[in-house]
């Protein structure tokens, strides 16, 4: 990995190579040096590796009424290291992968417990199609589609004493998701406005962490609630520095659980988990330094503004705890 990073750094920082593995191809589209001028899509021929790390410090949860409830003696930290790969596949299309690795820790001073676990998370694959673009100033509209496969750990571990007494953390819903949405960006000199909106369909699946209660032997079927999401961002750039503030909104619908139904609709037997729907809003603050055309460094803070209890602790993907998230990303592109 270190060698790979070093190679990427050399390629990203070096002058245009001329042949072989590092060749700068004639077909490659130009990429603006400044964040404010960049399209939402990766330009044709550019390959980007993002190495990100973030930590969420969960200090409480949301109540069903949207109130904050702080933990008394519990601390929940949820770290994510992430590799994102983006490639400008054609004049109008970008494809991307995002592969997370999670590490979670739950400490309870009162009970004297300290439980840790780590696993690959759920990888996302995405496709971004540019519907219209105008440069200088940038005006950009893209269609986005993405898919998540439940790659992460979903076995709750041994449950001696009952299924709720787990020893492992679950890092996936155990079910696939698909997103469809649109995004736009408009530049006004050193400022840019951006927005995303979309719908995430969450499919049902048999999951290991949903244990059939009668026999403690078998698995149940889960369908997390679908999600409507959106955000609006304001970005300002001074020299190589860019700062963005972006409120993010999510409406989650109720989840359903049960056993697999017969026929072509395996979700037909599922029943709704009361109170599992809810609203949430976070504020994302990002600062980016465009070191070169090929290297960016950014730092990020995600601050929860409002939320509701969604019933499935400690599954952050369905039930986000209350707490701030901080992270940094190194972006290398070639």
């Amino acid at each position, binding site marked *: 990995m270190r060698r790979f990073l070093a190679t990427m750094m050399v390629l990203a920082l070096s002058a*245009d190579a*001329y*042949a*072989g*593995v*590092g*060749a*700068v*191809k*004639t*077909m*490659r589209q130009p990429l603006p040096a400044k964040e404010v001028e960049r399209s939402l899509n990766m330009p*044709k*021929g550019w*390959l980007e590796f993002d190495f990100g790390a973030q930590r969420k410090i969960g200090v409480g949860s949301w109540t069903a009424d949207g109130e904050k409830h702080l933990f008394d003696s519990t601390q929940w930290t949820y770290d994510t290291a992430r590799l994102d790969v983006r*490639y*400008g*596949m*054609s*004049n*109008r299309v970008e*494809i991307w*992968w995002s*592969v997370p690795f999670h590490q979670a820790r739950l400490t309870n001073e009162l009970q004297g417990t300290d439980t840790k*676990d780590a696993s*690959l998370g759920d*990888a996302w*694959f995405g496709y971004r199609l540019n519907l219209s673009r105008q440069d200088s100033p940038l005006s950009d509209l893209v269609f986005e589609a993405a*898919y998540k*496969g*439940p*790659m992460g*750990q*979903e*076995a*709750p*571990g*041994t*449950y001696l004493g009952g299924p709720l007494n787990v*020893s*492992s953390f679950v890092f996936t819903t*155990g079910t*696939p998701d*698909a997103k469809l949405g649109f995004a736009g960006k408009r530049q006004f000199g050193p400022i840019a406005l951006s927005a995303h909106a979309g719908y995430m369909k969450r499919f049902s*699946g*048999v*999951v*290991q*962490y949903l*244990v*059939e209660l009668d*026999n403690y*032997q*078998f*698995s*149940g*079927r889960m369908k997390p609630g679908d999600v409507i999401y959106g955000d609006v961002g304001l970005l300002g750039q001074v020299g190589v520095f860019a700062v963005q503030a972006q409120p993010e909104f999510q409406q989650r619908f109720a989840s359903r659980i049960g*056993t*697999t139904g017969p026929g072509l609709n*395996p979700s037909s037997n599922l029943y709704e988990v009361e109170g599992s729907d809810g609203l949430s809003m976070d504020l994302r603050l990002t600062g980016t330094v465009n070191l070169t055309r090929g290297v960016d460094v950014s730092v990020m803070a995600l601050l929860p503004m409002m939320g509701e209890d969604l019933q499935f602790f400690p599954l952050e993907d369905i039930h986000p705890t209350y707490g701030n998230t901080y992270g940094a990303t190194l972006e290398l592109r070639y």
Partner: protein
Amino acid sequence: MNPTSTRRALMGLGLTALVSGLAPSEAQAGFVFEYNYPDLDWYTIETDHFYVHYPVSKVEEGNDHYLNAEYSARRAAEASEEMFEPVCSNFNYYLTEKIHVVLVNQTDYLEGFTVPPWDWIVISANPGSYFYRMRGRMEWFSDVLVHEFGHVISLKLDAYNAEGTQGVLLSTLYQDGIHDTASGAEVFLGGAEPFWWTEGVTEYSSDEAGYNWWSNSREQNIRMTFLDERLLSYDELIIAFDKNQWGDGERNYQQGYSLNAYIRERFGDKATFEMARKGGEKWRPNWHVVVEEVTGVRMEQIYDDWKAYNSARYQAEWDEVRAEGEVIGREMTSSVGDWEYSDPDGKDKWYSKKQEDRETARERTGTWYFYAKYSQDGKWYAENATGALKVSEQPERLVGALQDEFAGSEAAATKQRKSDMSFWIPNEFGHTYDFVPGKDEIVFTGNEHLMGSPYVSGGRVELDGYEWKAIYIADLSPTTKEKRKDRGEKVAYETLKPNKILGKRWDRDRYTIVPNTLRGHDPAVSPDGTKIAFLQYEDGADNLAIINFDGTEKTLLTDFRNSFVQNIDWSPDGTQLVFSLFKDQRQDLYIMNADGTDMRAINRDPWEDQDAHWAQDGNIYFSSDPDGKFNIFRYEPEANKVVQITNVIGGAQIPSITPAGDLLYTYYTGNGFKDYALPQAEFFEKDVSNLFGLDVDQTEVQEFLAYTQDLSKYEAVTTPYNFARAIMPPTAVPIIKFENDTMTNFGLTPGFQVFTQDYVGDHTAFLVGQTGEDPLLLGSYTYAGWYPTIDLMAYHYQAKFDYGYLIDDDNDLETTDDQSVYEGKQHQFVNIGMVGINYPLNGRVNLGLSSRIYQYGFKTSSDTTFQPYMYGTETSLDFTYNTVRARYGHMNAHGGRYLQASLGHGFTDMVYAGYNGFDSDDGQLLDKYHYNRAQVNWTEHIPLGGFGLDALDFMTKRPHTFEWTFQAGAIDRNVQYQDEFRAGGVHPAYMGTGAIQPNNQFSGYPAFSLSGETMLVASAGYRFPIITDIDRRWGAFYLYDIHAQVGGTAGNLWSFRPPEEDDTSAYYYDNYGQRVAYDPSSVRREIPFIDKAYKNNNWMLFDTMAEVRVSSALMTASWSSFFRVSYAFNEITGIQDPNGDDISETTDTGFGNSLSAETEKPGPRFYLGIGTGW
């Protein structure tokens, strides 16, 4: 979680199938050669825009295969830089990346291709033997490089996708064990440029750049294609596949060029280049609309206009020839063809045949017939026919073409004698030969192992990978055999026919190689029969050489660096040689003394003078193209005069004068190169001396001959090849799969394949990654820098899937009101590491040795980490013999044999803690064990002829094939299920392998449903065409053939058998309900055909199948589909879920039944593959 269910589920997923399926493939040493060449060092010339890599042998002393391509590389570098600017200028697209040109000189055969996204061009230093017959004699390096570089520029500009990904592969597979169906589809969304444009635009581009040496050879191709009504339709011009009729591939090139040239004339200089730019702007599955966007006219209309324009033009040319008097003679056939009609009825009869039948009839008389010649004593006749020399004892005046008497009038004895005294010699394609005066011998061009010819038996081991041409002597002395005449006494007769063993000829004793003639070709024997003049190839040039029959006194008579000498012949008195010489863009006739002195030109003209033949009458006959069409001419040295002998519209080449003074020559038609004869009395006899520049200034000639381009400037920019600086830009293909693991477990799996290698192919890396519910990571590395190819591979795969257990309270499946299904989900993994080496023993035989180690495990809901289940390793020696001839672009093999045999030794360790490190299988407790495995797979594809019956003649027109496959395998002890053989129908879109191949064997039964330690399976099938040569396009879809196949399979897989149930003292039940023997020796091997296989409860299994195969292309890429119905005749039992509904019944003894109570009933099973192949 019940551990037994874990184990069985593991089986159901077929993960072990991957283990056996990941053995190293047959040797594939890069894209160019089957062999590796560690005896070569590589060097690199760096220019402003190119790298040229070329080989030099490490050892020169005593090395018969020493080669050095330095001068060729310098010429390639020079040509590359010269044409860079004009080609880029054509498209107004200037590359910033440098292009790597790999110059191969290990072969005597033509190579030339490019992969534009990899910035890679490969060309051979040697253009081969017959290329110029189709394209004209040319300056090879500039011609091939400007062509390939034209591809690089045009396809880079035309590519909508970035060069790192050329497209996306979409794939889906749905396997339904309840309805017994498996349906899959695959499509690659990539470029869709039609072949006519791809090849035509680069030819046209080279023309515009001033580097296309388009000659009358190519013009004759187009002309005769029009006049003989052999034109490819517009739809046929679109794809490179399915060009299996004579000359179709070449026509695709030439018609493509001609179409582009027509577009230039009609729409302006830049129209065809603009198509490249337009093509790159957005993705179009139907590329043809680009033409309309650029020209405003539909492509089909342009094609029709082009056709009308050229038809009129060429018809007018023919009228001109006829007006002057067409002198052509007659094709040397054994009877009068229907096309040689002489009255209106005959014409009506001929044209009442379908176009394809007319083509078949015309091409049945030969398509690549060259060099018809008689020995000077008139005893022997020979012709180079489609890549072999047909020699026969044939008195001259029996040739119908010369006297209008055909074989039908011959006496039976004469016909028999002709048949006995004719045979085939493995002369290299397109090369000349010569008779030895006064002897029954012929000298010809073979290759050093006489490999690759169907006329000499194969099987000879070839280790170094060199198959250079060489001069051979063939003995034509007949052998005397006996046969019974009219059921009476035996009579002796003479014959040249070889002895045959198993249908193969064994007559190598007839051939003697002439020592010191490697890379020699095109021999001519001196009139006294003591010397052989021939052409010697080295480093991109041919020179004239002379040698004794025993290989002594070899002398190079010329020493040009950039020449191609062609067709030598001796003067009748043996003192001089005549030949044509191509050098520095000129090709004229020359004479020199037999000792190499006094080389002088006969003529100096701009024509392509070739095929010199010094006849016994003292005159030199040759072919040339002064009026744009090749004809035969006679140069009379005494009178310094040239006379035209033929006057044809097609093209007359390669003259030979018979002892009686008649002319034999090669005539070009739209249906192939044909041997023609023209009686002396019909010679055209037109004096054309004024056309041939006979007044030669020999001083100027000597200056011309002495000139060699000084390319020493490249010495300063030449360095040893450094692979670290020559790694290709990696390319990736995104893959998006949608498929189900089980009936209720669907998932989308996005992934990618990444490939890279260094430019000379020593190092290759391949990476596959997929994410989603079933992540996979596979990395492989291939080293081809040593004699055997070495493969390393590492693989990690995880899979999650759900399944069900049928809980039946009263253990009676008939009562359903007490049944319920419990669901489970499991997370499994497999790790595999492999190392293998492969070595080709010749073009058909491959040896491989591979070793792999693997590990399985899983994680249930109650596990915090993955639990290892078993470890295994297996080392095997694999032997493969393959002569299957698949038709280009699709796989309806029409002949050939595939034989694969392997011997392996394995070791398995069961480690699952839940079983205390043991497992039971077939009644035996297993822990650590060694085993040996032997396996044979033998497939024959047998072309079916018409058996001499008119009623079955249709079988000869379109390929009918009988195919049978025999599989046998044995493992020498009882092994765990994962190590057993398995069979059952597998869809071609299924990612793993492991089921027996071909996959239509036992396709009536569920995938992986049959297993055992002994396997004996035989299948047979009859494959036949339903509709062929459809050759129609609908949008981006192109359809060419539909075939069908019917067949069936018989056999079984037998296992080891636990103690009988009623022998209760011999076994106990383990915790999971399985019978386990107290004494392992009481677990006995089932005997094939004697024992009923206890796992599937049958002595023998039978199935039958019928399928339709659709050969087609989508977006110009091969895209073939099938629909198969299979029917299993036997009801089978099995482990846990034999009926394939992913719900395991648990009656009787609970979850751990050795055999499930459910069965798979006899019945049909359906397979559909859209674009998946079959």
